[in-house]
């Protein structure tokens, strides 16, 4: 075959291009530390890598979710622990006062006041916030789960002007869930009637203008416009003891893996009111009734409430255990996800990442080949017949 200078140079050019191309590819692999730099480098492996990356990313998010759920569950654990302790202290108090022989009106009153403080503490526990959210309110995370004690008073004026009634809670545990009416029988005398029972709490009390009226743990101050109260004027008072649930008892869920959901919250109605538990106990009502029994010296009731306190402790412990099971499950899931993620990473790395030693060898090889081509080229280009013709 005739070999012309043109074909020689063309071939040389092609070889130089081909070798510099493989050199630049080897360099790219070395620089990015990846053997697949674009899908077309190896579509089959790249498709697997895309799938793996997708799974790895999902797994990471699942671990995020699990960690979030775990930190929430930890909060519930702490809080239910505090609640158990609180019920324990309440029981100690009640046990002491259940013994008619050693209990006196004075010790009962001291116990009642301490119990009253415990109830306030219980409200605080029930309204615990995690990251600014009330954790026992179900979906209503922007509302405190339980009301503290409240009182509201109001009524229609009899004479000109406006009837104003200011009210405040004096002793939350002395309150019941009843409505009252302050009925003025004269400008300087009034009765207080319990609307629910229809019984008079106080009768024919004397009244001086601006005087605070106290009953059932609350205090009401009445101002009747410009004049003084007159006979027939009625002030309605609504009292709510602590313990009314504001939440909705809904269970919050979060995804832990595709389509798998786990509940993250405990609801206040279940933990504090025993809703949905057979024989469940309303802790606030229990505290209130013990309180009443203590103030009335009703030892039968006090003793009966001891059993209920035990049941209540059990109820709280059960809820705490339920939460604990969740923590265990989350830990297991996290371990599993982590190991899944690790193995996925290994698979991905096998497909996508370079073996440094191999890549280095490839690079050196490509460099050598390139240099050899250039050396050979300079040798081939040299001679021509014209060199030998003188």
């Amino acid at each position, binding site marked *: 075959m005739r070999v012309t200078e043109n074909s020689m140079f*063309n071939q040389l050019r092609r070889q130089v291009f081909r070798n510099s191309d493989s050199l630049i590819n080897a360099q790219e692999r070395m620089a990015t530390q990846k053997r697949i730099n674009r899908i077309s*480098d190896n*579509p089959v492996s790249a498709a697997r890598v*895309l799938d793996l990356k997708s799974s790895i990313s999902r797994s990471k998010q699942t671990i995020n979710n699990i960690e979030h759920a775990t930190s929430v569950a930890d909060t519930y654990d702490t809080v239910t622990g505090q609640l158990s302790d609180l019920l324990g202290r309440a029981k100690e108090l009640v046990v002491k006062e259940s013994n008619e022989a050693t209990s006196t009106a004075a010790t009962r009153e001291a116990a009642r006041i301490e119990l009253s403080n415990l109830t306030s503490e219980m409200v605080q526990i029930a309204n615990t916030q995690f990251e600014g*959210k009330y954790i026992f309110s179900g979906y*209503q995370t922007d509302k405190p789960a339980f009301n503290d004690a409240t009182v509201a008073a109001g009524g229609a004026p009899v004479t000109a002007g406006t009837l104003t009634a200011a009210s405040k809670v004096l002793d939350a545990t002395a309150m019941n869930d009843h409505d009252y009416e302050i009925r003025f029988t004269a400008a300087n005398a009034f009765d207080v009637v319990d609307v629910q029972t229809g019984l008079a709490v106080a009768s024919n009390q004397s009244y001086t203008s601006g005087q605070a009226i106290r009953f059932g743990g609350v205090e009401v101050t009445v101002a009747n416009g410009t004049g003084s109260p007159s006979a027939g004027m009625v002030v309605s008072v609504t009292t709510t003891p602590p313990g009314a649930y504001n939440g909705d008892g809904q269970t919050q869920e*979060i995804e832990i893996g595709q389509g798998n959901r786990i509940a993250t919250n405990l609801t206040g109605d279940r933990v504090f009111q025993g809703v949905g538990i057979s024989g469940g106990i309303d802790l606030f009502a229990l505290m209130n009734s013990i309180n009443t029994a203590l103030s009335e010296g009703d030892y039968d009731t006090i003793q009966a409430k001891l059993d209920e306190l035990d049941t209540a402790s059990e109820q709280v412990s059960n809820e705490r255990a339920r939460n604990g099971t969740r923590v265990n499950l989350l830990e297991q899931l996290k371990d599993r996800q982590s190991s899944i993620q690790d193995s996925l990473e290994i698979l991905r790395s096998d497909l996508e990442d370079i073996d440094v030693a191999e890549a280095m060898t490839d690079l050196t090889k490509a460099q050598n080949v390139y240099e050899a081509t250039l050396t050979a080229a300079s040798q081939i280009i040299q001679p021509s017949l014209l060199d030998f013709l003188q």
Partner: protein
Amino acid sequence: MSSIFGILNTGRQALNVQQNGLQTIGNNISNANTTGYSRQRTVLETLSYGGVRLAGIERMRDEFVSARLLTSNSKLGSSSAQSTALQQLETAVGETDDSGVTVSLRNFFDSLQDLSASPDGTSERESFLARATQLLASFSGVSDQVTQLRTQLDEQVKQQVEQVNTITAQIAELNQRIGPQSQALENQQNTGINQLLDQRDNLINQLSSIIPVRVIPTGSGVMTLFCGSVPIVEGASAVTLQLSPDATNSGLSNVVIDDLGGTRSLAGDLGEGSLGALIRARDDQARDVLDQTDRLAATLARDINSVHRAGYGLDGVTGRDLFTGLSASATFSSTNQGTVSAVSGQVIDESALTFDDYEVRFTSSTSYDVIDKTLGTTVSTGNAWAAGQNIEFGGMRLTLTGGAPAVGDSFDINSYGGMSARMDLNSAVVNDPRAVAAGTTSASGDNRNALAMIALGTQMTMGNPPAQTYEVYYNNMRVRLGTQVNIATSLQQQEETAQQQLQGLAESVSGVSLDEEATNLIQFQRAYEAASKVIGVTDEMLQTIIGLI
């Protein structure tokens, strides 16, 4: 019986002929690097009465290899144009670890997960909206790049059409010039015709890398060129390729030729060659990527919206969309015969949208069929139409204005085209992150709607029938494209090798070897010297004879 003057004459002829040979060698050496130059060789002939004469100057060329080279050029032209275009396309949908549609989709759904963990968190809501914005940017990024690539390809199509027209005009002109001299060609007379033939072969070579060319000699040295079934050069006349903007294809140009008073598309005749490859890359591969990205964006918007509308924001408002931009676009072909001057599309029921391509075809001026072109099914037939009446199906409304359609007129409508560029976030939600409907009630801790949106991320909603998640659909498209790039690149290398081999073969016949020419140079020089010697000796002989007198 020879005379002394006969010898002198023979010597003179020999001098002439060897000089001519030297000139041919000089010409070969000068053109050693000229593209398309075929090596020439002097053909010598003995005269019957003694002596030598120049029979002709032969153009060394293997016609068989040349013909194969044309096909190979076309194949290389299309494979290299295709692999370049596809590589650019792959870059457009390429991703890094923190940008691109795949990653943005993932981030979008991950941020929904975070939102479901803290549905009342302002930062979670803000971050969800930021991820949604990132997703929109990724969609429009792909759309921008692919649209830009299509425009570039269209520019290249225009340039190549111009090139083809220039080349075919030149070939036609050469045909005209070569024709009358063809007799000289047969007689192997050196009349500069070799140069014209080289020029024409070179032009045909160039042309063959742009369009497929079949060369048919039609006598008298004239070549007729066929591109597919179209004779683009016939004798001294060339067919001019024209560009016609296509309204149903974003106004990009179709290549057409005049035909019987009208025009006909050349698309079917452009098999191999870079022009056909550019058109296919523009209208098939690049458009597919764009259409699929649009479909993904549209489906995501439809699905997320339908869940989002059902939920409540923290502000207690329900029924709000998260994404905007779903709309129907209608086009019609310029080949329609009726008097309809404009069409418009509209979405009337978002949840009924299917994102298929539909065609409304009129079977009479008052009756139409609806065809789902994506599935290849007929949606409905024989629907009555009257002027001013809207055509409604699949959640869309098509309005024809300006007149009545004629039999056979068709109108295209779809509700996904351009979605990845058009898609946006509902401003009511952007302005107030509280409007993100994470719950099925307005309760601050209600995350049920967020969970429902998360579920969409792993649902099989894409494809016909639906069998892929959003991410898998998009990744599949990328892998498919990657495979195409991979195949196109190796095909290109293959064609390159094949073409180089053929070129080597052609070169071995037609190429100039300097070593060979140097040898020939010496050979002819020696013959020239010897012929001079003959004249010298004859001269001496003559002087001897003259001395006798």
